[in-house]
């Protein structure tokens, strides 16, 4: 495009408009990132500095040390990692199998089956806490990591997404594989799964984010630090009888959000694209 030294009136209006927009967008951006930045700031300062906004106050890592020693956050980390990994593994296995069935097979009751799956889109296991607790108690799984993850490994969202993806793959590839003598599972394994990889990755990121941050069901089903994940650990840490130290709480919060946040900062594009891809219907 040419750059004119004298701007036309319309262009000047557009430029001013664009400038205002940029300013507006930036203000909103700062407003949006503000709270998190403040929490970060509070976590590295002493108790008094946090509430008095002293910008020149000395930095300290003491809060993190206190938090780390004050509650078994290392155990919480381990539990959370095991949990999200287990859930994702389960979701992928069950989801791929079920999506394959819905996408490529005609069978009696497929509509009813699909409707049943869709029910879970609206009515998640999360809201059925009372009865699901009873089920887990009968299975003798209370306060274990599998108990947290089990209700989620049949993911309606995942099945829906993967079905969509599988359906969009050209049938010729399937047929070609069949000609080569591939059985049905073989075709799934060799044709569908590799081609659906971007969706699987996207789904993986969404799932990990979601379950890293899940709170209510883990709260209900765990009793001790044996299975307690980070979110419940944070809530338990904050729920003290003798009062909140805001800087300690900020430090604990930072500890809990850090991994996902750092992963997000590094893999921003992938995260955003994953969520986008997951949402495209």
């Amino acid at each position, binding site marked *: 495009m040419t750059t004119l030294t004298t701007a036309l009136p319309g262009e000047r209006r557009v430029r001013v408009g664009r400038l205002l927009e940029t300013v507006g967008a930036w203000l909103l951006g700062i407003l949006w990132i503000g709270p998190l930045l403040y929490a970060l700031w509070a976590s590295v300062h002493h108790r008094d500095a946090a509430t008095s906004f002293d910008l020149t106050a000395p930095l300290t890592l003491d809060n993190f040390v206190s938090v780390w020693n004050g509650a078994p956050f290392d155990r919480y980390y381990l539990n959370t990692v095991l949990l999200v990994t287990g859930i994702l*593994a389960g979701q992928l296995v069950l989801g791929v199998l079920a999506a394959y069935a819905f996408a490529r097979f005609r069978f009696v009751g497929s509509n009813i089956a699909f409707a049943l799956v869709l029910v879970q889109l609206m009515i998640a296991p999360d809201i059925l806490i009372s009865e699901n607790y009873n089920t887990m108690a009968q299975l003798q799984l209370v306060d274990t990591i599998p108990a947290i993850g089990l209700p989620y490994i049949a993911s309606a969202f995942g099945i829906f997404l993967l079905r969509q993806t599988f359906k969009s793959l050209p049938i010729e590839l399937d047929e070609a594989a069949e000609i080569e003598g591939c059985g049905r599972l073989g075709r799934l394994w060799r044709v569908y799964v590799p081609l659906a990889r971007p969706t699987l990755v996207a789904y993986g990121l969404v799932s990990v984010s979601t379950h890293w941050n899940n709170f209510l069901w883990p709260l209900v089903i765990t009793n001790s630090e044996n299975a307690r994940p980070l979110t419940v650990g944070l809530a338990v840490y904050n729920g003290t009888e003798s009062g909140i130290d805001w800087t300690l709480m900020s430090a604990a919060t930072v500890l809990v959000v850090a991994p996902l946040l750092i992963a997000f900062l590094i893999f921003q594009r992938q995260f955003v694209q994953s969520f986008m891809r997951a949402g495209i219907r």
Partner: protein
Amino acid sequence: MPVRPRSLTGAAAVAGALVVVAGCGGGGDGSGGSDGLTMYYPVAVGGPLTEVVDKLVADCTEETGTQVTAVYSGSYADTMTKAQTAARSGQGPDLAVLLTTDLYTLIDNDLIVPLDTLDEDLSWTEEQFFPAFLASGEAEGKLWSLPFQRSTIVQYHNKEAYEAAGLDPEQPPTTWEELEEHARQIQEQGAAEYGLEIPSTQFGNWMFQAMAIQQGVENTPGTDGFVDYLDDPGSVEALTWWKSLADEGLMPSGTTEWASTPEDFLQGRTAIMWHTTGNLTNVRTNASFDFGVSMLPAAEQPGSPTGGGNLYVFNRGDENSRAAAYEFSKCLTEPERAAEWSIASGYVATGEPAWETEAMQEYAEEFPEATVARDQLEVAQGETTSHENGRVAQAINDTIAAVLTGQAEPQEALTQLQANIDQILQPYRAR
């Protein structure tokens, strides 16, 4: 960005392995094995106190020979929830530290055992524990629990703020009038934003009970799990007074958070606060100013409810495990340990023998503030305890919130509240 392909069989294997590993690692089963017991406990302060509890538990493991896994299960409410839901599904703890007010709820649901089934002679308890604390564990003529972390409400005041306001820092308020005067003067002199803070969330009902006692109401603890003092004229007076403090601006308006009140005190936002003595060590450690602790002021009389948690033995396992749990509780509540726990936390050491230990005597000399809560026991009443305690306490808290936020008038609200409570407790009268 290269991504490792997800192997279906590999994923299944991983998932399977994780299930097994996690299942093995998770403590799903309540009892820690044939010899091992599980104990649930809430902790007032995060951090160092978990270590103290661990040490107490380790000491007693050695002394009694019983292996106990101590599980920190969050706040009092959380611990009660966890203990109950786990117990109902057959995987509960063998012993737990729970609020004294949960007594009837636990009995009603057959979750705990009376101590006379585990010990023929319980007279030792009368020598070891203060009668006020012991009484909180008694129901239906039996003793059900042993005092462990007990408290009363105490009044903390900021001596520096007092001086700045021209008040004598060694003369905290002893009557309601004095409290109002001091608070007024502090605010007028600008020594603090608020003269006084009395928290009204979470344990607002505890604070309210104190005011009712100070107004001369007698039956605040309730009888046999039935509570009927809520619409007593003294109770109405109490709530009206509480509201007037906020209306006058001596206290923040609306509800005041239990958890942020100590922080407000430490930051100098309020010069006086009513809070649990269990906060004492926290305040002592973190205050950058001189502060004092005193008994709550009197209206018609001084007084405070007791509070805190007792050790309960749960109705599970066999005779041996229950006996072991009882022995362990005895060990944890021994005078030396009670003293250790009290010094570390600020809770009141639970009996005379504990106060007579060397450690406790030294501590009391060095830090006389710790004796205030104990001295207040003479004018203390038991904490309000009823059937369906969760619901009843919530109802009281809701009413206090309604009045303090101006949504309801004290007389009307309390009459309605008593009617509500009567309705909740109705099914238990038939027994």
